[in-house]
């Protein structure tokens, strides 16, 4: 069922990289955590250091999770995935150098903090 049309069907890339004023879209998800109701979306400069995700972006969206007070990126075991592939990011290098591209989906999994709320 390709798209049918009575003329030529144009390819309109509504969200291509060139439309974000030098930023790229990046999506972040703390695996298993549901107080924050969905993965989050950000327009970020590709040259931003990966570590800024940890220091600035993740607290901004996930501070409401009960697990957040126990999340310490120096001590807590964290498994990082970029677009479904497990990686060990270099916090001092840029998003781009860590393989984060336009519309990349970054998941961080914390086996000791599973998102349990309440009892």
């Amino acid at each position, binding site marked *: 069922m390709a798209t049918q049309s*009575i003329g030529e069907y144009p390819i309109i890339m509504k969200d*291509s990289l060139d439309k974000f004023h030098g930023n790229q879209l990046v999506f972040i998800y703390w695996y298993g955590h549901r*107080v924050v109701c*969905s993965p*989050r*979306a950000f327009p970020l400069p590709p040259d931003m250091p990966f570590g800024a995700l940890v220091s600035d972006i993740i607290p*901004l969206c996930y501070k409401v999770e009960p697990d957040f007070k126990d999340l310490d990126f120096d001590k807590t075991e964290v498994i990082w995935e970029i677009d479904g592939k497990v990686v060990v990011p270099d916090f001092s290098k840029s998003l781009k150098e860590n393989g984060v591209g336009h519309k990349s989906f970054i998941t961080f999994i914390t086996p000791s903090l599973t998102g349990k709320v309440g009892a």
Partner: protein
Amino acid sequence: MSVEPRKKRLNKKDAYKYMTRLGWNPTYQKEEDVFPFLEMEGLKIHDWEAWEDPFRMTMDSYWKLQAEKDKKLYSIIDAFAQNNAQKNISDARYVNALKLFLTGVTPLEYKVVQGFSHAARAFRGEGASIACQMQAIDELRHFQTQVHTMSHYNKYFDGFHDYSTMHDRIWYLSVPKSFGDDASTAGPFEYLTAISFSFEFVLTSLLFVPFMSGAAYNGDMATVTFGFSAQSDESRHMTLGLSAIKFMLEQDAQNVPIVQKWMDKWLWRGYRMLGLVAMMMDYMLPNSPTSWGEAVELYIEQNCMALYKDLEKYGIKVPEKLINTIVAEKGHLSHQVWNIFYNHTNAAAFHTWMPDENKMNWLSEKYPDTFDKYYRPMFERYIELEKKGERFYSEVLPLVCQTCQIPLGFTDIEGGNPHVYTHKTSEFNGEIFHTCSDGCKEIFDAQPEKYIQAWLPPHQIFQGNCGGATIPEVLKWYKIEHGVDNMDYVGSPDEAMWNKLKNK
């Protein structure tokens, strides 16, 4: 002076014929130029006359019937206004369901006027064409009567003031808007499958029965009357939907797989959109007659399955994968959608709140396997935060599905991971696209050229197309007054007005 003797009136059969058979055979233009959509969708139609017109009544009786219904409706709306009946509803929280309906569904009714007018023009058969024209008129009437029915609430409550601008701009309203845009930019037969069959026949009970019975349970007799007034139209529309499907299937065996794909696609798109109704039923109605879970059992597991069984003789198969997901999600959907809106109430044109203990107990009773385990503890934490004066509003934007445009807040129930958001990806033209489910991914993958054009609200905000980069700037562009139309019900001007009305 001579007077021409008055001509005898036409009998009903002839009157119907002359008023509904307005077609012609093109002579100086090619047929494919006059009807350019006929071949586009790949359906084979051999005999347009085989179309059964469920609107088979004379114009005379149609106008008379609709005029009588309107008279009754408007006298009740008048009585409702004169008696200050807004004071008789169960609680002002209920009014938020009306705000959602007026901003989400009513403009969609108007979109459907355009869609049916287009389908009427595109069809070669006169029966098909007149049926679509008549439905277009009905939908216009529904649009008008919905606006009029709810306008009284605009005098007392916030959020009703600019529904048409809101429909075009606000993030969650891009869900129904994209549904309507997707349907009306398809070919005429797919349009009919989307609206007449999937929505009107399969899913409309899931929308209108809870909405109208919810209105009755919460003392909103104006809306109940609107429901009665529209109901006889809806029955005709449902008949049109089924007759359209049967017409396509009976015309040629080659049509069956095409129609099947459309039925599957629009069942899923309709179901995703009705997530809004799920939260309305379980959370927004102070008195809930039925839970979303019970509605799925009745309208999907029983009615919808029986319908597919009826169509089996044409070779139509039950879309088992989709139905299984709908059934698996029935104990989770409303809670997850309410959580999305609770997170983002700072950017909504209505209020949300955490359920009180009575409502929590009702939810536990209706959802014994899921509510206490997965949702009550989370909601109790929100309540704790509220008590500390730290009511949670998200400061950042969600990732939304490229197809249904809902934030990716649905979890993998069937895979045994009810705490993990389902996330699918596709690639097209060197770019990644994210979807919320197998259903939405399959729709994207079948027509990526169409869905890459989606106007996704978070992306549009980031591109600078929505008034600015900050929440206050975007709210201004949405025509939402911060602290009035949005934020929690508790502490809202609506609550203050209600307390005043009730002398609390």
